[in-house]
Structure formats: C-alpha cells, structure tokens
C-alpha cells in the first residue's frame, strides 16, 4: 500500500456535521490562502487606468465622421498592482497541470514545457505581421514548413493543411476537403457515418458541412461494428469519421479493413486524431488507409490548453484530398525561398475548397509544437506513446478489481482507461466520484463520455506523470470509488474543500445571467 502522502499529513482531524473542519468563521470569508475575490466591476473605477497615456484632448480636431462616442462605454479599470493581484487571486481558484494530476480523458493534459513558451515569445515569431512582405518573414514560413514536414512524416501522409484553428476546425477542414473531392467528380453524396462513441464535434462538424449524420453502433467489446458499417456503405456515403484510438480507449484493430471497404464504396476515411498521443512516433495513420486526420497540437504536441484554447488543428491529407486543401499554404521554390500560396496564385492553388480563416493558422502554437517535437525527436515521441499507454494500462489493471471496466477483457487499452458506474450503490454516481476526487486534490477524469458506457469515467494519465504520482492517484481513486460502492452519502455533497461547493447549473441555465449588471 502506498502512503497517501509523504508530507507527514495524517487523516486525524474529524469533520464537523457540515463537512467542514471546525474553526471560527472569518470576517472576510477568506480562509488563509483561500481568498475570495470580487468581480472586476465591483472593484474597478471608470476613471482609473493602469496604463500611462496622454489625456484626451477634447479640443483636438477629429476625423471620425461625426461618430465620436458620446456615451460612456461602461468599462472600469484598475492600476497595475490591483490588476496583477485581481488575476493572481483568481488564478488560485483554478486547477492546472502545473498544480497536479489532470487525467481528463481524451484531452491529453500533459506537461506544457516552458521552453515552448520562451520560443514562441521570441520577437522574431511574436512580433511579425501576417501580411508582412514574404521576404521579411522567411523564418516564420520555414517554421510552418518544418512543422508540416514533421506532421507528414509522423503520420505517413503526403500533405498537410496548416490553417485550422483547433481540432473541430480541423475536422471541418477534412470534411470540406472530402466534400470538395466528391463534388469535383460530380458525386453528390449526402451521408457521413459516425460511430456512436465519437466526440460530439464529429457529428456537429459533418452537419455544419451540410451532411446528414448516421450513427454506427459499437460492438460489445468497444469497437466499431465492422459488419454494421459495411452494410451501411453505399453510393450515398461520403465519408466515415472514426476516432483511432477510439474513445473507449481501444485501438480499432480493423481500421485497415474498414478503410478498404469505405474506399471500395467510393467514400473517404476521416480519422479523428484527438487520441494521437497513444500512437505518436509508433504508428503512422497513413499506413492504415486514412484520407484525412486532424492533429490537436494542444494535446499530442504539448501546447497549453489555456483554460479553453487556443488550440491548433492541422490536418494531414491523402493524395486524393491534397489538391482541395484550403488556402493559404507554404511552398518552397527552387532557390530555397518559402512563399505562401494564396488567392492570387491562380496556377498553383489548384482546386482548393477555399479559405477557413483570415490568416495562416496558429503560428504561436506552431512554434511551441515544433519546439516540443525537436526536444523529443523521433525516439522521444515513440517513448511518449509507449509511456502514455503503459501508464493507462497500469491504472486500468490497478482499478479493475473494484471498478467496473467494461472493455478490460478486450485487450490492452491505449492511452486512456475507461470505467463505468455499474456497481455503485444506488443513488451514488460518477459525478459524485468526480467531486470526491476534487477533495482529494485531483482534477477529475472525463465523465459521462463516451456515451456508450453508463456513467463513463475516462482516465488519461499521459506520459508526463511519474509512477509515484500515478500510485498516489490510484490510492485516492480507489478510496473514493470504495465510498461510492459502500454508499457513503457524504460523497453526494462533495466537494467540501474546493473554492466552491457544487454549483447550481440548472438555475444558471433557467435564468441566464451572462454579464455583470451593476
């Protein structure tokens, strides 16, 4: 048995009835390092600023076409010390990877190396304009080119579209390329097949691109039902979107067979690359018959998640789809100079399906991802996949004796382990376990996804956790799960120790208050 904590702390203090440690209430509502922070609009003032600028000369002539602002905007300001404190105090109410283990399945919350941040801030990358003359941004274009080369090589694919802004935007890019390829042949296919275990972005993307979405069932062992899929293929099916490794944490071992069948029926294969971390440097999706796959640089390639972005979702493309890639893209001429193929390069741009964003993509994420790739190299990235998969299997086998693991018999998992709430005492749920883990100092796993498992808990440790950290998590996870199995009612009111207790989400949606109204 692992010691739950090496700091010397012992679970000696009893909780009072309301679940809190006994102690007098404070005047401020603060509890030592746990500090309450008012809203900006409650502490800021309209006439205060933290930036020194010349005062507005109200007599100066303007050329604003008579549209000068007469009414106050309604903003408030803080001086610099107040600003830094406001946000620092808020930051402490957040959980991040820097703080602890963050096993959020399908999100690949790995360590974000600080060298990435440092490189992205070099003025040569951070302070250049997207429309600067191309002769003045050769290094930036070379970064895009080099990163593209890494992505193509790691995936075994011939081409890459770099401009998509995030994973879902990348999905859209891939699906639009597929649609453009069909249209070029005059083939008006209408349906995209999506397994029921897919991320919500898959069906949303296909619908956004004008397709009708049909579900493909999963087998009891957690993989795509190949027979059902083959049965559904036909002249109306434009594409199949499959996540591999899938969201049940399993490798789709029949992927090649599926791809061949889809191709034989005249369709294309879109692979959701959200789970690429399990196979990076180890397996090339191009060897499996993929036509398009987005890569979340903010998952596999360690660019920060930032509390919800920015992401970056380059899409690798097969020979068949490459001509339809969106503008702009980077090429190298015979002299070795780099240039952008944009709207004006009529000859070179080919039958592109158009443009997905104003500029060239997430350059700030490209520099970070390239920095990360160069750091790891081909050998390190292979080790990344192996350690990520090893860690997940270790968790799976350390939990399956007490926690329902629906696909544990389907073979090894990939980089995430999936559990369900089947054996919990009635009334206790996956959500309760998640909130119990918060009290233990962990960010919970992904819950209630994928939808194919009741009360799903998807645990993705990533490769950047030590064995000691994982052992400690397992100890805590087992303890919380045991409480759910034993019917510990106190779990239903967890978390007790977070900056907030459970929040009323129903109330928030019933009467939405989406801006400060003071």
């Amino acid at each position, binding site marked *: 048995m692992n010691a739950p904590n090496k700091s010397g702390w012992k679970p000696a203090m009893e909780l009072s009835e309301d679940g809190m440690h006994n102690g007098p209430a404070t005047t401020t509502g603060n509890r030592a390092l746990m500090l309450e922070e008012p809203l900006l609009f409650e502490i800021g003032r309209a006439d205060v600023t933290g930036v020194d600028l010349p005062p507005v000369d109200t007599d100066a002539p303007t050329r604003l076409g008579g549209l000068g602002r007469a009414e106050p*905007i309604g903003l408030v300001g803080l001086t610099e010390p107040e600003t830094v404190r406001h946000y620092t105090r808020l930051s402490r*109410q957040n959980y991040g990877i820097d703080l602890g283990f963050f096993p959020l399945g399908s999100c690949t919350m790995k360590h974000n190396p600080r060298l990435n941040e440092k490189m992205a801030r070099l003025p040569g990358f951070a302070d250049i304009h997207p429309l600067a003359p191309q002769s003045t941004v050769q290094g930036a274009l070379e970064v895009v080119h080099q990163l593209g080369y890494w992505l193509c090589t790691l995936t075994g694919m011939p081409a890459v579209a770099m401009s998509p802004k995030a994973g879902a935007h990348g999905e859209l890019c891939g699906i639009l390329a597929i649609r453009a390829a069909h249209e070029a042949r005059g083939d008006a296919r209408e349906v995209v097949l999506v397994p029921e275990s897919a991320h919500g972005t898959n069906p*949303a993307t296909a619908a956004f691109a004008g397709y009708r979405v049909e579900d493909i069932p999963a087998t009891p062992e957690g993989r795509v039902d190949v027979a059902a899929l083959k049965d559904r293929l036909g002249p109306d099916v434009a594409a199949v979107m499959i996540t591999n490794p899938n969201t049940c944490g399993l490798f789709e071992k029949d992927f090649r067979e599926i791809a061949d069948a889809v191709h034989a029926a005249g369709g294309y294969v879109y692979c959701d690359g959200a789970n690429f971390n399990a196979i990076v440097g180890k397996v090339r999706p191009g060897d499996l018959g993929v036509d398009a796959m987005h890569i979340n640089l903010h998952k596999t390639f360690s660019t920060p998640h930032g509390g919800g972005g920015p992401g970056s979702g380059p899409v690798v493309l097969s020979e068949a789809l490459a001509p339809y890639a969106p503008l702009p893209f980077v090429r190298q001429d015979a002299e070795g100079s780099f240039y952008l193929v944009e709207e004006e390069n009529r000859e070179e741009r080919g039958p592109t399906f158009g443009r997905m964003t104003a500029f060239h993509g997430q350059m700030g994420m490209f520099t970070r991802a390239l920095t990360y790739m160069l750091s790891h190299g081909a050998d390190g990235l292979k080790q990344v996949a192996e350690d990520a998969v090893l860690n997940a299997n270790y968790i799976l086998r350390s939990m399956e004796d007490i926690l329902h693991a629906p696909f544990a018999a389907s073979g090894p998992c990939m980089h995430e382990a999936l559990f369900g709430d089947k054996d919990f005492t009635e009334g206790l749920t996956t959500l309760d376990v998640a909130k119990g883990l918060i009290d233990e100092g962990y960010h919970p796993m992904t819950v209630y996804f994928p939808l194919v498992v009741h009360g799903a808990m998807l645990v993705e440790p990533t490769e950047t956790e030590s064995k000691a950290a994982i052992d400690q998590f397992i100890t805590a996870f087992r303890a919380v799960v045991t409480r759910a199995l034993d019917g510990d009612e106190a779990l239903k009111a967890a978390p007790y120790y977070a900056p907030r207790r*459970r*929040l009323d989400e129903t109330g928030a949606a019933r009467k939405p208050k989406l801006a400060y109204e003071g």
Partner: protein
Amino acid sequence: MRYLPLTDTDRQDMLAKIGAASVDDLFVDVPEVARLDGPIHGLPMHASEMAVERHMKKLAAKNLVAGDVPFFLGAGAYRHHVPASVDTVIQRGEFLTAYTPYQPEIAQGTLQVLFEFQTQVARLYGCAVANASLYDGSTACWEAVAMATRVTKRSRAVLSGALHPHYAHVVKTMAHFTGDTIADAQPAITAEPDLEGLMARIDDDTACVVVQYPDILGRISDLTPVAEAAHAKGALLVVVNTEPVALGAIKSPGEMGADIVVGEGQSLGVGLQFGGPYLGLFAVRDPKHVRQMPGRLCGETTDAEGKRGFVLTLSTREQHIRREKATSNICTNSGLCALAFTVHMTLLGERGLRELAAENHRLACLAADRLARVPGIKVLNTAFFNEFTVMLDGKPAREIVRDLADRGVLGGVSLGRLYPGVEALEHALLVAVTETTTEDDIERLATELEASIAASFQETV
C-alpha cells in the same frame, strides 16, 4: 528525456503489474501492416533544451521584427503596446495549464475571468450578451451569418464590398457547403462607402447584411440607416469590427442597431504572432437571441452554500450535448487570448481605452496629413480611425511595399495582395498607425514613399 518521468525500473514494475512482457504487448491490436521496427525514419532524435533553442532562434532571426522598423501594417491585425503584466498573468500555470472549465468548483478563476470578459465585450460592442470567444474575427464572421440564417430561417447573406476580403472568402467557403447564398461585392475606391448600394441589395430573402466598421479601407460611417433597412426587410444587421481600440473613440455597433456584433480581439493583449492565435469576439444586442449563439457562455449562479459562483451554461446549444443539432461545432476556443484581452482591457479601463483610442487617432491624422503632402500620394478617406487608404502613383502598391521593405520600412498592406487581379485596387495602400508609431516613423514613411514612388517612375520610363 527531460519530459518523461518514468524510469526503466518503473516501466518493468508496471509491466509486471499489467502482466505484459514488454510494452509492445500493449500495442498488439495495431495491425501488422502498421507496426514499425523503431523510431520513424526521416526525423532527428531528441535534443537538449540548448540545442532546440539554438535551432528556433536561427529561424526567428530570419524574420524582420515589426518593432525594429517603422511599421504601418494593419488590415485586420494591429500592433499595439501590450503592458508587461498581461504576459505575466497569462503565464500563471493555473491559467496556462487549465482546461475548459467543465469542473466549475475548481475552475472559478477561469470562469470569473470569462464572466468579466463577456461583460467587457458586450459593453464595448453595445450589446447585451457576448460569448466566451471564438477562434478569430473571420470565423466569428461566418458564425454570425450562420446564426442569422437560424434566427431568420432564411439563407441569403448580403456582404458589404468593404468587408475584409479574407473574411468574405471564409464566409463564401462555408456557404458553398451549407447551401447558403452569399451576395458579395468588391470595394469601390471612394471616399465614403456606398451604403445606398448595399441597402438596395437587401431583399425579402435576406437573412443578414454584413458590414465592417471601420471598413477594410479604414472608412467609418453611420450604420443606423443600414440597420433600419435590414430590419424593414426582416433581416439582421451583422457588424464586423477588426480593431476594438476604435470603439474607444467611435459609437458602438449596438448603438447603431446592429443585431450581431463580431470581431477580432487581437489588438488588446494578444500581439501580432503572424496571424494566430487570435481572438474571435461575438455578441448579440437582443438577449432573446442568446440560445442561437455559437460557442461557450459563462453564467452566474450560486453554490450549495449560497455563495456566488460561475459555470458554463446553456450548453444544450453545444456539440458535446446536441451533436449534429448543435449551433456550431466549436469546442476549444481562444481562452488564453480572451484572458490576455481582458487583462489588457482591465489595465486600460474606460479612461485608458478612450485615451488609447484618442492617441491612435491623433497619430493617424498626423500621418494622413504628412502623406498627403507627398507628391504622387492621395489620401482617400474623409473619415477614419487609425487606418486609412492612400492611392499611389507609379508602380502597383504591392511592388512599392516590397521596395519599402528593402528600404527598412514596413509601409502598409497593399490592397493588391488582398484583392489579387483587381486592377482598380492595385495602387491602393492601407496604412495603419497606432500608439506604437512615432512621429519619426511617420516622417520616415513619407520620405521613403516619396523616394520609392519617384524611383518607380524612373524605372518605368
């Protein structure tokens, strides 16, 4: 390998627990055809922090840094001074390395920031509700069109000719696949935009009219008549703003009757970064449209002890719940850029934003006056904020811009680059001026432009 904590002993112990002989046993489900015998060929092996830094610095050194030369580029991306504390705040690990706040009890920091951000954006735009961000201005522009088609149940969008051409291209790209009709036009080189012509294109099938403010040529005009014309036909007015600083000096789109206001937030906090990541802003004037909005929304609520707290809300609009019926496929958005924007906006406040806007406008007026005195240059705009269009004699502006770069001046964006093949725009140059521009920079631009135009005549003779 400095990012991998497992030791070989750990790996052996863990394999033993799992009951596998080697790590390759964990990859047995990978088909034979896709198994590799070692690291992927064609890529270097791992490298030290120092070696990687050397490689990246070499690449960075090949770029001409905007801050090192007189710099006048805009056209949807503006160079503003970002206070040092902005970057300090966004590099706090609790913000940088957090995820989308799905577990609100341990994400109140991000959530309260988003609530404050939404409030700032809504007020700046003169709207009721703003979302928690989209990717960038151009994708926000398409999302606005898509939302307008849902609200009006119509499928035609009328684009102003003076909408950023890349934004228009994004909208047309998407509309091609959704089956919506886009009526667009090219900008006429006139001192004032042709709003009459725009309004004449609104018909009974029109879902929305999309107008940029200030427009791609830097012009500003009262959009109230366009709002009225749109509403008279049952259409929505979508206003696109690519320079939020402008709204510290000019009326908000909401005040003029815009129904959906979208824009690029990059000017505040984010920096140029060669085009991304940027920050898509999205707001609606009428709260009844909230349930048709794309993207994340943060709302106020209370916790089990009655304390105020914040959560992501109205998520039944979103892909993870609604799947193919979602209002958008967006998931990850621009959280950290939204944080940078909101920290910068907090430092400015009402007073600072107004002062910043006034300073931008003052310098832009200086620049316009100085350039107007250069032989061979005419200033097109009567009204502008911090960006205006000049018409150049001599060679096409694109070539002049390249020549200026050789002379060490990043002199603006040639419309020829944005509108390839449109002869009427070939001699137009967009010049942006911000608080980072000095009077010496303006003088240098005027001098070099004069020389470049003169040289271009000599060459053509």
